[in-house]
């Protein structure tokens, strides 16, 4: 379990890193936390010729708030979200999600942006990004900065809209007002495992009436997906058990699931319904 030979570069500045990505992006890989990349290299499933280690870049480890948005720097680790980083619905749901991400040693190394760039369909942050309409900010040496909406970002398994010369420098999550309610649920075989299904639910209330709803489902297909039909059944409704059940059933029916040794497609679709129902109930109780 030793990786194939590779070159290792350790840029000291963002400009240097972007130049290296321009030169080696096609055959190289960015090393951030390395919690997915390094095992894949040890199995020789990934054989990058060059590793560009961004851990020494000085200005990517920030978490700040601007214009009603949380700005997550490209090197912020999962563990940063284990405790509420902000008040309100987002602040409450982030620790719930973070607790599902693998185990503590992994959470202290792996990064939020790395998780998005890797685009494992079982990654919690990818499902969240889709569910809250996050924006991913990518930068390249030749074309500068561009902003990619989460719905345009995840192309297929392990594949994103990022160009080989681009680096995620930050991710922006909207910080919602208190009339939003978030919930997140997943089911996995063991604590910290890849989920068999996960659901993120976001509801905006006007009094007792749901005015806006988004449900993002992860870990059942090639990318996280929005359960649009399920969400639309909720809009305009008062949340009661029947409404929630109907939305969960709609989610189960509209999601296409794949199967593997840990769960057949049918079982995962069933779990989509269960997780959606529980995420909605959790949102209501939040």
């Amino acid at each position, binding site marked *: *379990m030793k990786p194939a030979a590779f070159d290792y570069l350790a840029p000291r500045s963002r400009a240097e890193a972007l130049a290296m990505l321009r030169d080696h992006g096609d055959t190289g890989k960015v090393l951030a936390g390395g919690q997915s990349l390094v095992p894949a290299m040890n*199995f020789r499933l990934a054989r990058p010729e060059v590793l560009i280690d961004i851990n020494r870049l000085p200005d990517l480890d920030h978490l700040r708030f601007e214009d009603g948005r949380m700005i997550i720097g490209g090197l912020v680790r999962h563990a940063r979200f284990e405790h509420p980083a902000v008040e309100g619905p987002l602040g409450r749901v982030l620790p719930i999600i973070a607790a599902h991400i693998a185990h503590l040693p992994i959470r202290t190394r792996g990064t939020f942006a790395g998780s998005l760039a890797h685009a494992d369909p079982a990654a919690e942050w990818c499902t969240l990004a889709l569910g809250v309409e996050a924006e991913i900010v990518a930068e390249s040496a030749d074309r500068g900065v561009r902003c990619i909406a989460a719905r345009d970002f995840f192309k297929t398994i392990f594949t994103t809209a990022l160009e080989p010369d681009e680096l995620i420098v930050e991710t922006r999550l909207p910080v919602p007002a208190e009339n939003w309610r978030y919930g997140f649920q997943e089911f996995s075989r*063991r604590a910290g495992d890849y989920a068999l299904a996960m659901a993120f639910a976001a509801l905006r209330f006007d009094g007792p009436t749901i005015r806006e709803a988004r449900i993002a489902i992860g870990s059942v297909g090639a990318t996280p997906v929005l359960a649009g039909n399920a969400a639309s059944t909720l809009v305009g409704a008062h949340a009661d058990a029947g409404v929630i059940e109907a939305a969960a059933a709609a989610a189960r029916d509209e999601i296409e699931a794949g199967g593997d040794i840990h*769960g057949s497609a049918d079982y995962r679709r069933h779990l989509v319904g269960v997780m959606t129902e529980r995420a909605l109930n959790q949102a209501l109780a939040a």
Partner: protein
Amino acid sequence: MKWVGRRLPRSEDPPLLRGEGAFTADLALGARMVAFVRSPLARGRILEIEKPETGIVITAEDLEGVKPITPRLTKFNYVAIEQPILPATFVHYVGQAVAAAIADDLAAAEDLADRVFIDIEPEDAVIDARQALQDTQRPVHPEAPGNVLVEAAVRTSAVDASMDKAARTVSLSVRSHRQSAFPLEARGGVAAFDRASGRVTLHASVQMPHMLRTGIADCLGMPEADLRVVAPDVGGGFGQKMSLFPEYVVLVWLARTHRGRFAWIEDRRENLIASTHSRDQYHELKAGFDAAGRLQALEVDIVANVGAFSCYPVTCGVEPLMALAEYPGPYRIEHYAARARGVTTNTCPIAPYRGVSRPAITFGMERLLDRAARAIGIEPIELRRRNLVTSFPYRTAMGLELDRASYVEAMDQAAALIDLPAFRERQRQARTEGRHLGLGFAVFNERSGYGTPAFAARGMEITPGYERVEMAMTPSGEIEARIGASPHGQGLKTALAQIIADELGVSTERVRIIAGDTDRTPYGWGTFASRSVVISGGATKKASEKLSLAIRSVAARLLQTPAEEIDLEDGAARARSGEASLPLAQLARLAYHQNHQFSDLIGHGLSVQADYDPAGTFSNACHAAIVEVDTATGGVTIERYLVVEDAGRLINPLIVDGQIRGGVAQGIANALFEEIVYDEDGNILTSSLADYLPPTMSEIPEIEIHHLQSLSDASYLEAKGVGEGGAIGPPAAIVNAICDALADFGVEIDEIPATPERIRRSLEARAA
């Protein structure tokens, strides 16, 4: 105060906790590293092996004259299959070592291995044991045209008549999926050639160093005396490290041929695909009960997948034959019929794993009894009470003698600790809230500490079982014991020191146990099959008694007191009456250096040896599990796990508790999580820890342990083996609890692991 019975912290632990242990990989520094090229296909003819132009790559053609591994039984229609060290013509399973690539470091060796191309003409593989029984047109080995390598059958005279007369019969089909023993430290070895002596020393992560030496020497046709095998610190074995593996033969061959030092350190992927597996079995059971729920007859058919080759030395008979002999467990069953077959397939070989067949047969019996209890409408423990053996010794239908035990008492104590009526009330209450709690029991016995009489019944060409202990007091008064057992995490050195300390009246700190080194220990069988405290401990007690006699006879002359009136205590020999006493260090010095005064009594020096070869003893336990099942997901949470264990006299309860906890964790893995999965082409789909799922601390509950101590003269120490029991009970207890939780739905699950999806499928099948 006696040392035996104390919860003495293990003397083995401090160096391990300080990081001062020496495991095989720690000893590989500076050795040339070996990476094995493994077959990517489950079955096919080797057309060509293309070696890179540079670098050392060893294949079958280099190993001219090296003999294959061929373990044998002399009974049970056993078909001996030769396992080549490296195959020349045919591959039989994914992961089989085909070539060895050698380089100065492991990364370079893996790079070299990457450049070896094996051209294989693929053939359709046979993966499943039942499929292999059907599909005999293309047998896995031509020597076994029906794919059956071992087959045994028994039938007492009145099985059919008793079954016909039965008021009620219950049948079920058990499926136990394949599991890995999954030691924390994988396999590995470092073989070093000594130019001065011409000998090779192999340090390897193994359980049976003497047996390994015999096996390797036989394969290489070398004098056994020219090979030294040392088991250094070993990070768990659980049976997986008993067998002779081709990789070790290659290492010693390399060291001798290239007169150097070579190391192979297995990685996790190799361990999961190419070490050994276990527990891949199908059982068909049918039992007849009389109107009062008493078992009248039991009939079982056992099909065990033994993989592509037979493991050395215990052979592929180990699982099916143990299942056949011990299926009735602690229950009175006069009329018994059984057939057991070991079926070869294109999968990784099967070898012993903690519990061997007993987790599966206990699962079968205990599921059977729970189903019957539900059908009759009585509490499961009540049905067990009507059927458990209560008077001892009891001779089973297979002729095994069950020595004194506490089958009913252990169960009653478990039920009392659970407070069965209170649980039933809480269960009813929870159900009104839509929650599904369940309680399951597993009552079983564990055959342990058996020597050659038991193994000989299996017709083994290599019949293990006895142990020898060589013991001496040094001139400065410490005790050295050289043992043939080979502990690898069990705390045996601490336990044996406690036995010796009591006999010789010294502190355990004065005792040194020497183990795991063929140059320094008597020929012995290593550590497996819950044998070491019973057999090596029994021999240790016998040796201690002999040494005590020698010491007391020296003291008798020096203190002018009869030997039988001298006690050894607090490091001194003391006359029982009066003040006369002599420190053992002083006595030992005189025994060696003024030996002419005592040689008529003790010969020259203070050294003795003793052997022990018992027929065996049965420990027993009742496990009880309370679970909550999430009927929406199929997820299971273990709320409480309780063990009432009877291992006879406890030498060190702290160590016993540790053995039980570790075993229960592995049993929970077997019940709910771990499964080796092959696809139909024989590719293994669980080759990493992303897919093979050992439970972690989050999934293992607190395990409550209570002890009973039935003292039996079947064991010289009155201690019974307890190494495997922890792993035997959980599949039965937990799945019984799941089915109890889902009794309203009529769910019965007879397959392990009981994964969430399998539980959901059962629920859906009942709902449909």
